[in-house]
């Protein structure tokens, strides 16, 4: 067999490969990695960024004696959609002291889903605040844990003061079809937003 022609991904044909990214945000332990794992074609991977602890969550680094490196981990998954199109799903670090990493993660993203756990609804305030002040289109996905108190979507919208133009969906982060629906909602919302910005009537074809 001639391996010189073995080229399953079209890597060697000089074809341009486009990648897109959707961000999965939310508080610590809300199920972001579970959601990514439910639909990713690879086991969720972890990439680590290093920074000096002196720069984390502190405005005046001069007050910190000595520097220590801290590792921020983010989990992500991949869906290869075509030879020339790959979708990546990036989970944000859960701890809010790593906000600055979020800026890098959302840069260039198609949109985001903010995952909310009804058992710890107040954990969603910080991530929602973050997206309210960014241009990135986002949706809110209510992750239903088995023993979680049941709320109607509109109750949660009111409790978290989520703007009426932000779509909300119920989901089960363990279920592939449910996660797929969350991602479809993100992309549809991104398309509507983009059309609205360019003066088109709201419709997704």
């Amino acid at each position, binding site marked *: 067999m001639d391996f010189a022609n073995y080229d399953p991904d079209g890597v060697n044909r000089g074809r341009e490969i486009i990648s897109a990214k959707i961000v999965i945000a939310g508080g610590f332990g809300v199920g972001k990695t579970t959601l990514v794992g439910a639909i990713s074609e690879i086991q969720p991977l972890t990439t680590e960024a290093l920074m000096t602890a002196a720069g984390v969550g502190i405005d005046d680094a001069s007050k910190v004696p000595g520097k220590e490196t801290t590792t921020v981990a983010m989990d992500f998954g991949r869906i290869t959609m075509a030879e020339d199109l790959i*979708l990546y799903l990036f989970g944000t670090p859960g701890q809010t002291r790593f906000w600055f990493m979020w800026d890098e993660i959302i840069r260039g993203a198609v949109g985001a889903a903010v995952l909310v756990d009804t058992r710890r609804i107040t954990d969603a305030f910080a991530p929602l605040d973050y997206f309210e002040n960014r241009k990135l289109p986002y949706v809110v996905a209510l992750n239903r844990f088995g023993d979680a108190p049941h709320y109607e979507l509109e109750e949660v919208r009111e409790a978290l003061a989520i703007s009426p133009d932000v779509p909300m969906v119920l989901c089960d982060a363990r279920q592939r079809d449910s996660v797929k629906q969350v991602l479809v909602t993100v992309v549809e919302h991104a398309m509507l937003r983009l059309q609205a910005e360019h003066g088109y009537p709201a419709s997704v074809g």
Partner: protein
Amino acid sequence: MDPRRDPRGALVRPYAVTRGRTEPLQNIALEAVLSSTPTQSAEARFAGHDKYRISSVCEGRAQSLAEIAAYTRMPLGVTRVLVADMVAEGLLTLHTAAPATGFAARMNLLGRVLSGLREL
């Protein structure tokens, strides 16, 4: 003394493979995809251990910067410096991340992602 507590050693050690450089030649996005042809990988054999590892990860399957960092277990910042060097040296091919401008181009990409998701 714990080396992590040594202020001189704290950042220098992870960046030793980049000879202390922490700024990449270009700021490659986390999701930007890189690939390596057999010719490029053959050349990467002589580029040092870390660059050869990176090259091996991208051979036969295009990988994002984030995947390269995860598979090689190198910190993201270090990986970004090395990958940007390799792109400049012609050892890796950098593909474009999602188009950031142009209504038609962005709509087209969103449409492709949407149908890709629906087909899953």
